[in-house]
């Protein structure tokens, strides 16, 4: 992994966004995250409207960490994974709950990565880490900029290791990610969060 540019500590939330090809990356990362985690993981990936629960079921099966069902106003707690439900935007409230919104699609997507990243940036500021994975749409770039401006840390999947490079490339082109990491390096990065660095 490249030199730590900023020490990652006091992280409360890691938000991960992705579209086409991101499931593959998630399946290479989630099963190997060291349990327990001292932060919450929120996953926002593009999916079919008709996919009501399959993604949750698959990730719950594969992940090493408990996946909590996201219902309206559920409390966001460290130690768990939360997945944005299909056909809703996922938002963050000041009282550390998650809320949902069915408003217009953004970047042809609901859930939209930008919407959730921007909302998380507002609430969690420098305690937030945003990770953007593979995809073939520009969603996520504005969200990464919002996290950057709010003092959070941004990580983009290295386009060479992404099945679809458009989404990570677009973020690299239009924002200044703190890290550009290959899939296995993202795992290593997550496992280092909130831990002493040498």
């Amino acid at each position, binding site marked *: 992994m490249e030199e730590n540019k900023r020490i990652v500590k006091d992280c409360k939330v890691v938000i991960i966004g992705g579209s086409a090809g991101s499931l593959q990356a998630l399946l290479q990362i989630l099963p190997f995250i060291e349990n327990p985690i001292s932060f919450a993981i929120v996953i926002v990936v593009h999916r079919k409207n008709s996919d009501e629960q399959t993604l949750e079921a698959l990730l719950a099966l594969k992940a090493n960490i408990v996946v909590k069902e996201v219902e*309206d106003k559920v409390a966001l707690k460290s130690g768990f994974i939360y997945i944005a439900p299909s056909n809703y*935007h996922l*938002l963050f409230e000041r009282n550390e709950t998650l809320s*949902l*919104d*069915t*408003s217009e699609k953004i970047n042809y997507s609901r859930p939209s990565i930008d919407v959730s990243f921007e909302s998380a940036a*507002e*609430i969690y500021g420098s305690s937030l880490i945003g990770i953007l994975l593979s995809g073939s749409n520009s969603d996520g770039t504005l969200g990464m900029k919002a996290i950057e401006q709010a003092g959070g840390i941004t990580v983009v999947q290295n386009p060479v290791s992404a099945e679809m490079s458009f989404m990570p490339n677009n973020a690299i082109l239009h924002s200044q990610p703190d890290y550009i990491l290959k899939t296995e390096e993202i795992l290593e990065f997550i496992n280092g969060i909130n831990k002493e660095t040498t």
Partner: protein
Amino acid sequence: MIEDIELEALINDVYEYYGFDFGSYSRASLKRRVSRVFYLDGFKHFHEFLSKVRTDPDYCKRMIDEITVNVTEMFRDPSFYLVLRNEILPLLGTKPFIRIWHAGCSTGEEVYSMAIMLKELGLLHKSILYATDINAAVLETAKSGIFPLRMIKDYADNYRDSGGQQDFSDYYIANYGFAKFSEELSEKMVFSQHNLVSDTSFNEFDLILCRNVLIYFDNNLQKRVVNLFDDSLAVLGFLALGTKETIKYSISQTKYKQFEREKIWRKIKE
């Protein structure tokens, strides 16, 4: 994005000047919606926006119409409609008369979906569908039964996935990019403006649908609204919410029984 403090100033002014209370709306969504109108209408400074809202009632009305979310679709969540069609409506069909309330009906797509199912089950003639919303503009669209044609393919898919077996195109006439739904469907609909935040119960119903409305409210307001539904629901009547909503935190669970794993609850006692 506007600032939290600006949003609170707007909420206070809209309440003070016009009596509409957004104080119990979920802030994250409301803030996005207000920011959207603010930029859409070309404002540069928040105080200009605030002053326009205060001094121009027509503009305030537009602002409210724009901040309320009016995205809906026909047969949204087909599996939910399949349960309505196969299990809930046949139960209600044993009654001489069926009263249904669509609370927060937006542009009416779900009301027309309901009318189609009632018609196919031979129940429409003895049903009445009340459809209400806070937003007067969307009610006009709902009344007209005219929806964009580009959405119809998705709706026809939803209709089939929810157990519909007729030719969906028999229900509308397509013209100039719009689909106008048959007046036979809207004959039994009554539309009126109703604010869940401040208005009271106005009738007793056998089925109340309020899908993806409570998500915009905080816990206190959700409690108020669920109790309003409780006051408006006959014993053995049903309450249906959106797929991610619950009454669990709002009302005593001894009064309501969840229908299988659906977001449908039956009122089992007064």
